[in-house]
Every structure is written in structure tokens, then in C-alpha cells.
């Protein structure tokens, strides 16, 4: 195997991440690894139907099974029997009706997992099946049954500028296409789970991974009808999330069972249970009509998005808003009309997923750019350049944004890719190679009008460590390294002096959710606010204690140093300072809001990152197999904090997107999953990914930009699919409109043209 990875120089240094050794040695305990004395095992009974009325539930036989300690149904929910991040519409335990196969009907706690499993089979639920809405377009028909009191439309969003109808009349060239994007699964290694422990003081501790401990606490308090202060949520580390664990999953059942039995209850979903109940990426059908004049200036762009949000809301409205906002991406188009519908169906619940609606709409938008370029006979890079935003242009929905030249930066960087100039002729007559490029723009944070608070706490703790605490979670992205690197850089201490506290509502301040590429950005912002007061207080105290004037002191490794003419010396250690200040500990807290646009556009973003991706593919025309041979990404997201983590996000994001493009689809038929496990839902193996990737990080921000590093959790996933699709067109002349890419379509197209031709003429 020839492996060839190259990185820009700012990505080449590496540091050992604080959680690295424990992770690679298997020493690290995830929350699903925890055990407690007298611990019971919980199991959740999910609906037998995608849509049905519940006539009756009898738990008697299950309760009588030896070893069963509790069986709960909707009657056992003391508070609000609903949950949901934006508005609570999903029943914790269904009472009258089930709307998808993951709906919970009952749950059991038993002495062993086997007994709990058996007890589930003894719960008798009588259903009356109802017609299944398995397609959002069917859900919109007047004759469709209503899945929720307000009908089947969860959310509508639109954006309009100029007059598209009028503008299309002036276009020299118009392309119109409908793109279909699949239901992708997050496929985190650690499935949903953890332990909920009733404590002696009447509180409960929820040891379950999530992306936002405080939000879980809020939702659980509402369900359990107890004050939030009675709940402690311990939520890190997690074996992956990618958006999939932002919403509640097993927490309510574990908590209800733990309270009912007075025992710790462990629930850890199997992969099948996870597939059945877990969130997925929104399948979307996107129709775009885009018109340009002969010179390649795009004058009109019309977009219609239909998203299949499944049975309940969760973050569905926000995902649709994001897709609508990003429908013009980094291009300035004078006449735009975008309309989006997020529609309830009886398919699995779709919600938050890395990229957040941007992946779907960017696939369509970049597809339009490439089709237009071909129609106009123009270089696709040139077409993009002619329509690209300038640094001080307004954002994609007309809102004021932090000026950024990221779009031009990434386009320029990718234009220099050797992939674009080399033209390799395959020696195998049955393979064709092709190259494609796409770019993407991605908003960070939750956007205008959404509560998006952040904050942190910096203190000198009693052990003499500089303790920094955030309400963010570690789920593999490298958050701890980011925090460590930033503290070292901003404070001046060494890694050994730092203690990081995260993922525990009893010990961390509110920082908002670890989502929307905001973690790194918010850690940086918090430190900018805290470093000066913290340093000042520490130096003042040190000065008082040592008698050395503040202006000669600075924070360094181990402690506070004194500057002399030619050298410096360690004056007092952090430990000594902690002892000296134990009656008046030094602690700085900050609270602030994620920077937003001043324009009142719901969900409109203010800070954006950019990526450009070049892909080289090899298409096997005999089988339709597409192999990605090389991927290159240029990313503009501000300063790099932790190079290894940055690379991990872009490379990992590329592979996840490659899976989305070539393999992954959670197939449903009549509301039931066909792909119930990893033997049929296929994610890429090492043999499916390119052994050659180049990553460039562009750090330079627009002059005067004071917003620091943007997160890169999502941006690496967005431009990959359209780049691969274009590469396939380049190789065999087939425009791909549907993901995952169909080998069947390729074989059909090639057979019709080349193979037949070859067979008859040679």
C-alpha cells in the first residue's frame, strides 16, 4: 500500500492529547463501562409498528418474572411526558399512539440484562396499526393522516431576494435538477448508554454521555418533576456523537427506573436498538433551478427543499433553517428564492448531524455550479470565482457577518492542487479516472434568535493547579487538547500546571452545547475574557506576598517568575500561591453569548468557515465501483489550536462524507429499517478510503477580525460529496443526482454507451 499524506506546515506539529494514552491503551473508562453495587439493568420496549394506536399495555407477566424489579409505562412519568430540544413533542413513554419504530412504550429494570430482555417479551401491547406515512411528499397530501395536532409540516422556512421569475427570463443558460440525499447514521462507536444512580441525599446522578449536560438536566427535571438542582449530569467522555447524542436518548428511562427501584440502573443500547431509536441525518429532496448569463454571472437561483424529519421535532426546524440559509453558499446571486419544508413522517427521527443541513444543500448547490459550467463551456473554477462573495459582502441571507475572505482563500488554494493539472491516462481499459472540485461555506454557532450562551471558569485550585472548567463535552474531537493548548498559550503556564474540568453539572459553568462547531471558538473567547483578570489577580497577590512589583512578574511554568535584566527566576510556585490564597481563592468566571449577526434573521449566522475539496476518483466501468484515490481539502477557519485535532476533524470528516457519498444509507421500507445493523448499513473500511490526502489549513483572518479560531468539527464534511460527484462526471460523463452514488446507474449508463459501442464496433 502506498500512503501519501501531506499537510500544510501549520498542521505538522503534534502534542500528546491529555486523554490520548488512556484512549489508545483502552485504560479509559467510558460512562457505559461504569458499574455500581446493586446495579440493575434497564431495557426499553420499542414500538412494534411505525404507526399505530395503543389499545392496551399489560405489564403483569413481566412484573411477575423473577429478577424483574420494575416495569414502567407512561403512567409512571411524573412530570411532562415529552422531550425535545426545540419544543417537547416526543413522548418519553407512549400512551395513546406510536409514530415510529423507535418510540418507547415501556421499560424494565431487572437483575440481569437477560432477565430484562425476557421481561420485554412478556409485556403485552395491543396495537391498532394506522396507515404509515413513509414519504414526506405523501405526508403533504391533503388525504394524509395527521401525525401531530398541527398537521404534518414541522417547519417552513424561506428566503427571498429580487425576483427570480423575472430574472430567469433574462438568463442565457438555466439548469434545473432535483437532488436526493440519504438518511445517514452517525455510527458512533459507543452506542447510547450509561448508569443512573440514586444518591443518599435524594438527588440522582446521571452518568450518560450527551453534548450538553445542562440541557439534559433541564429536560430531565421537566420529565421527573424534580428541581434541576436534584440532578447531576456527568456526561464525558463519550465514544463519539457527531450530533447524534445532543438530544435525550436513554436518560429518561434510566432515571425513572432508578428512582422507582432506588437502585443504580444501567442501560446500554445494542447496535440494533441504537439504529432503531437513534437520530439520523435528514433525508432531503432538493430542487434547484439556476440561471446565468453568457459571461458566467449567475442571476437567479430558485430552491425548494423537502426534508424528511421523521416522527418528532428535535432540532428539525433548525436544520431546515440552516439548509435554507446555505442554499446560495458563498455565491452572490441577485435574485434568489429559497423555500424549505420539514415534514413529519413515520420514518425514524432525523435531527442533529455534523454539517446540520449544509451537506445536503451544498451537494445540490455545487452540482448546479458544475452543470452550469458545462452548459456555459466555462472552467468550473472560473465560474465559481466570478460569483464568489467578497470579504465584506453580506451573508447568504442578507445579514451582516464578520468580514471574511475565506471563500476566495480556499478556492485559490484548491486551484493550485496538482490534481487539477495532471491528466493521468488509466492503463486499464475498464477504469476511468476523473477529478472534481467543490467548495463550501459553513456557519458556526446556533445563529440569530437562538439562546447560544457560553462561558467558562478559570481558577487557581487548592492543589496549585490552574483549573479551567467548561460545560463542554469530550466525544473524541480533542476538546481537552484544545483547552490545554489555549491555556498554555494564553496564560503562559505548562501542561503540568493545568487541570481541565468538563462534563459534570456539579462542577462546571454553563458553556452551552458542544455543537455547531462552537467548542474551540468558545473556549478561545472565554479565555480572552478571563486571562487578564486572572493573571492580574494572581500577579497582584504574588506581588503582595513577595514584595516584587507586579510589572516584573509573569506567569510561567510551575509558578510565577520574576524578570531580571538578563534572565528570569521562578519566584513562587502555583502551589505556594494556592496555599497563600486559600482564604480568598482566585477564581474568574465569564458568561457571554456566541457572536451573532445584528440582523434579525432567524438562525442567521455571523461567523463562517470555508472549505474546498478536490477529489480524484477511479470508476470501474464493469461494476460501477467508484474508488476515491485522492482527496485534498483546503480549510479556512482561523488559527489552528491543536494541529492533530484539526487534522483529525478534516480527515475524519472527509471519510464520513465519503461514506455518505458512496455507501451509507439507513434504508427504510414502510417505516421500518431494512439496514438494522452494521452488516447491512455499511460504513467505509480502511480499504474504502483514499490512502492519499492533502490538508491545508488557512489561518489568516480578515484584517481586524477579533473572533479568533472557528471550530472545524463540521466543515470537513461538507464539500466532499459534490467534489466526488463531479469527479464521476469527469470520468464517465454521468451526472449524479442521488446519494449514495448508485453503481447500478453507472453500469447502466456505461453499458448503454461505451460497452455496447465497444462490443459492436471493435
Amino acid at each position: 500500500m502506498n500512503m501519501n499524506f501531506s499537510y500544510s506546515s501549520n498542521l505538522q506539529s503534534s502534542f500528546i492529547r491529555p486523554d490520548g494514552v488512556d484512549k489508545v491503551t483502552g485504560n479509559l473508562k467510558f460512562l457505559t463501562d461504569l458499574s455500581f453495587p446493586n446495579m440493575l439493568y434497564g431495557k426499553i420496549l420499542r414500538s412494534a409498528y411505525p404507526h399505530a394506536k395503543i389499545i392496551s399495555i399489560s405489564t403483569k407477566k413481566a412484573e411477575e418474572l423473577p429478577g424483574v424489579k420494575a416495569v414502567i409505562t407512561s403512567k409512571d412519568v411524573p412530570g411532562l411526558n415529552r422531550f425535545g430540544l426545540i419544543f417537547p413533542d416526543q413522548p418519553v413513554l407512549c400512551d395513546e399512539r406510536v409514530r415510529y419504530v423507535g418510540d418507547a412504550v415501556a421499560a424494565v429494570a431487572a437483575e440481569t440484562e437477560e432477565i430484562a430482555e425476557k421481561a420485554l417479551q412478556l409485556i403485552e401491547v395491543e396495537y391498532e396499526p394506522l396507515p404509515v406515512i413513509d414519504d414526506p411528499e405523501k405526508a403533504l397530501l391533503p388525504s394524509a393522516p395527521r401525525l401531530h395536532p398541527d398537521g404534518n409540516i414541522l417547519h417552513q422556512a424561506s428566503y427571498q431576494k429580487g425576483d427570480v421569475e423575472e430574472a430567469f427570463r433574462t438568463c442565457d443558460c438555466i439548469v434545473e435538477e432535483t437532488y436526493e440525499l440519504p438518511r445517514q447514521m452517525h455510527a458512533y462507536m459507543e452506542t447510547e448508554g450509561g448508569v443512573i444512580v440514586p444518591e443518599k441525599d435524594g438527588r440522582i446522578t446521571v452518568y450518560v454521555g450527551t453534548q450538553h449536560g445542562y440541557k439534559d438536566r433541564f429536560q430531565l427535571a421537566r420529565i421527573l418533576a424534580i428541581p434541576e438542582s436534584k440532578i447531576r449530569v456527568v456526561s464525558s467522555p463519550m465514544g463519539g456523537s457527531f450530533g447524534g447524542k445532543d438530544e435525550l436518548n436513554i436518560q429518561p428511562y434510566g432515571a425513572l427506573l432508578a428512582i422507582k427501584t432506588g437502585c443504580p440502573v444501567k442501560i446500554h443500547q445494542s447496535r440494533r436498538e441504537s439504529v432503531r431509536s437513534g437520530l439520523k441525518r435528514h433525508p432531503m429532496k432538493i430542487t434547484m433551478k439556476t440561471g446565468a448569463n453568457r459571461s458566467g454571472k449567475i442571476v437567479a437561483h430558485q430552491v425548494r427543499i423537502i426534508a424528511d424529519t421523521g416522527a418528532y421535532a428535535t432540532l428539525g426546524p433548525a436544520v431546515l433553517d440552516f439548509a435554507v440559509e446555505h442554499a446560495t453558499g458563498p455565491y452572490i446571486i441577485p435574485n434568489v428564492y429559497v423555500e424549505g419544508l420539514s415534514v413529519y413522517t413515520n420514518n425514524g427521527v432525523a435531527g442533529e448531524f455534523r454539517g446540520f443541513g449544509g451537506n445536503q444543500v451544498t451537494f445540490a448547490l455545487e452540482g448546479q455550479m458544475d452543470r452550469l459550467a458545462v452548459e456555459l463551456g466555462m472552467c468550473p473554477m472560473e465560474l465559481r470565482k466570478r460569483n464568489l462573495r467578497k470579504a465584506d459582502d453580506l451573508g447568504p441571507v442578507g445579514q451582516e457577518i464578520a468580514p471574511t475572505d475565506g471563500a476566495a482563500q480556499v478556492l485559490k488554494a484548491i486551484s493550485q492542487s496538482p490534481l487539477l493539472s495532471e491528466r493521468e491516462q488509466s492503463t486499464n481499459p475498464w477504469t476511468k479516472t476523473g477529478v472534481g472540485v467543490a467548495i463550501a461555506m459553513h456557519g458556526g454557532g446556533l445563529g440569530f434568535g437562538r439562546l447560544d450562551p457560553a462561558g467558562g471558569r478559570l481558577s487557581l485550585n487548592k492543589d496549585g493547579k490552574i483549573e479551567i472548567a467548561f460545560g463542554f463535552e469530550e466525544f473524541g474531537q480533542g476538546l481537552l487538547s484544545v483547552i490545554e493548548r489555549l491555556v498554555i498559550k494564553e496564560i503562559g503556564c505548562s501542561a503540568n500546571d493545568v487541570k481541565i474540568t468538563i462534563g459534570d453539572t456539579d462542577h462546571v459553568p454553563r458553556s452551552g452545547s458542544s455543537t455547531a462547531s462552537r467548542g474551540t471558538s468558545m473556549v478561545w473567547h472565554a479565555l480572552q475574557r478571563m486571562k487578564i483578570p486572572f493573571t492580574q489577580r494572581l500577579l497582584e497577590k504574588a506581588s503582595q506576598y513577595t514584595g516584587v512589583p507586579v510589572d516584573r512578574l509573569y506567569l510561567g511554568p510551575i509558578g510565577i517568575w520574576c524578570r531580571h535584566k538578563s534572565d528570569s527566576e521562578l519566584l513562587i510556585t502555583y502551589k505556594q500561591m494556592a496555599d497563600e490564597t486559600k482564604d480568598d481563592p482566585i477564581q474568574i468566571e465569564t458568561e457571554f453569548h456566541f457572536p451573532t449577526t445584528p440582523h434579525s434573521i432567524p438562525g442567521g449566522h455571523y461567523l463562517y468557515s470555508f472549505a474546498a475539496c478536490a477529489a480524484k476518483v477511479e470508476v470501474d466501468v464493469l461494476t460501477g465501483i467508484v474508488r476515491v484515490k485522492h482527496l485534498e481539502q483546503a480549510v479556512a477557519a482561523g488559527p489552528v489550536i491543536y494541529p492533530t485535532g484539526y487534522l483529525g476533524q478534516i480527515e475524519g470528516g472527509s471519510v464520513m462524507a465519503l461514506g455518505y457519498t458512496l455507501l451509507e444509507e439507513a434504508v427504510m421500507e414502510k417505516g421500518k429499517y431494512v439496514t438494522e445493523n452494521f452488516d447491512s448499513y455499511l460504513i467505509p473500511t480502511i480499504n474504502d478510503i483514499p490512502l492519499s490526502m492533502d490538508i491545508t489549513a488557512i489561518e489568516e483572518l480578515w484584517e481586524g477580525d477579533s473572533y479568533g479560531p472557528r471550530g472545524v468539527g463540521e466543515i470537513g464534511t461538507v464539500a466532499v460529496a459534490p467534489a466526488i460527484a463531479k469527479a464521476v462526471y469527469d470520468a464517465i460523463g454521468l451526472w449524479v443526482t442521488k446519494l449514495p452514488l448508485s453503481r447500478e446507474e453507472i453500469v447502466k449508463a456505461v453499458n448503454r454507451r461505451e460497452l455496447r459501442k465497444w462490443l459492436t464496433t471493435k
Partner: protein
Amino acid sequence: MRVLAAKVWTPTDIEEAWSLRKKFHLESCFVAGGTLLQTQWEKGVSYPPQLISLEKVEELERMNYKTEGAKRFLQIGSMTKLATCRNHPVIKEKWSLLSTAIQQIAAPAIRNLGTIGGNVVYGFGDAIPALLALDAEVSYFDGKTIKIEKLDHWLNTRQNNEVLLTGVILPEYRHSSFVTQFYKKVGRREAFSGSVVTVSGVIGQNDAGIIDFVRLAVGGGDNRPQRLKETEQLLIGQMIKPLLLKNVYDTILNEFHPISDVFYSGDYRRWTAANIVISELSRLEG
């Protein structure tokens, strides 16, 4: 997690295994490597209450390279692990097609557990198209004696006859001036995935470039592996020419009627099988 309520028997010879099977009949099944049962278990299919493991039957794990009269062949015990077959020096040298095929079955850990016999008895195993192309035979115990017959024949006729597969036999042929062979498995991804369509073939040409023997086999998905006999008939005694290739293409489409599943249509499998055969034959063009 579910509980295994079944009892596991570990007979040490074929007769004992057979009598356990007779005793429990439908309440039982033989277990070779257990890798297929494991995937069914994961899908919620329950095991029969009596499992008869063959792992202690030593005679089923032997390999013999033998000559009997003019016939030279390799006997592979049915309980031989797939990984062992794949790496066996004689197989690598004389029947490399089988090695190639096994390399594409599942993943290394599964090849260390799974057996050649299990792969064949399953009826859809990825080794079968290669074995058909190699004109393999099988040996089985029918309750009285060990019998030997062509794999191709056995696969097509075994429906209700309960037997215990004891081995796979690879005959060694020496003819033709030039022999080419191929095995192509198209999975849903590059590794660790079931076959969508698998095509294997062994083709011999004489000095004049005329095909003097040919065996082609296809399988994949829920399709029983089969020989492409009409296509073989068409090819025998011929030289590769464009018109012949076109006829071959059409003949394959006529004689291979794979079924569809949610991921791939029968048509895709037919076209792909025909494309692969054509591409391999075109290499032999004079």
C-alpha cells in the same frame, strides 16, 4: 443481549455426530465455524436447542494431496479453517483461485473461525464460485458411507437429502497450452461485505488460440452459485472475436437470472457478471 439456551454437543467422530443428528433431528443443527449462525443470532433468529459442534471431529480437519491412478487431487477436510486453506502452500501453488476467493470472504477474524465446509454447505458461500470453476468435488457421509460427487451436481440435487459434508476435493488437470483463471467478487464495499455478484472462471486455450476448455461460475447475494453452461458451450472450440464476445454477453444475460434485493437489482448483477466475463475473455483475444 440474549441468552443461549441451547446445549452444545461435541462429538469426536463422524458416526457420533451423525447419531446425535438422527436423535435430535429438527431440534438440532451441525455447527462448523459458527460464523453464519452468529450473524443469524444477531438478527434475532433463535438457535435450535441442540447444537452439534464438529470442532472435535479431527478427521474432518485433514488435508491430503494424493495420487490415485492417473488422478491427482487435494482432499480438504470440511472443518479446515478458511484461513488455513487460503495460506496452504499447495493451494497457493496449484489452486490459487481458491486462495484468491477466500481472501475476499468477510474479515481475518472470521476466516480464522469459518470453515471451507461451512462455506459450501451454506450454499451461498463466496468460495463456491471458485470451487465450481475448479471443478471441485465434495465428499459427504450419508449415514452409511462416504460418497463423492461433483460439487456442481451436489448443489443442484441435494435439496432434501440430509448428509454430513466431510470434505472438498480439488482435482488437478493438466491440459491446454495456456490457462487463465479469474475470481471477481463485487461486494457492497471493498472489504467485509457480502457478495452482490461473484464471477469466477477457468479458461484454457490451445496453441492455436482455440478455447479447449472453460468453466464459468456466478453467484452472489441470495443467488445460488451456478455454472454458466450455455456460455461455456458457446465458447468451447472458438477463438475470441468481437462477435463471439457479443454473443457471450447476450448468452449470460439469458442464462443468469439473479434475484433483486433492496440494494441491487437482478439486472445490475447480470450486467456486472456479463461485463466481468467479457473483460476477462477480451484479454485472450488473438
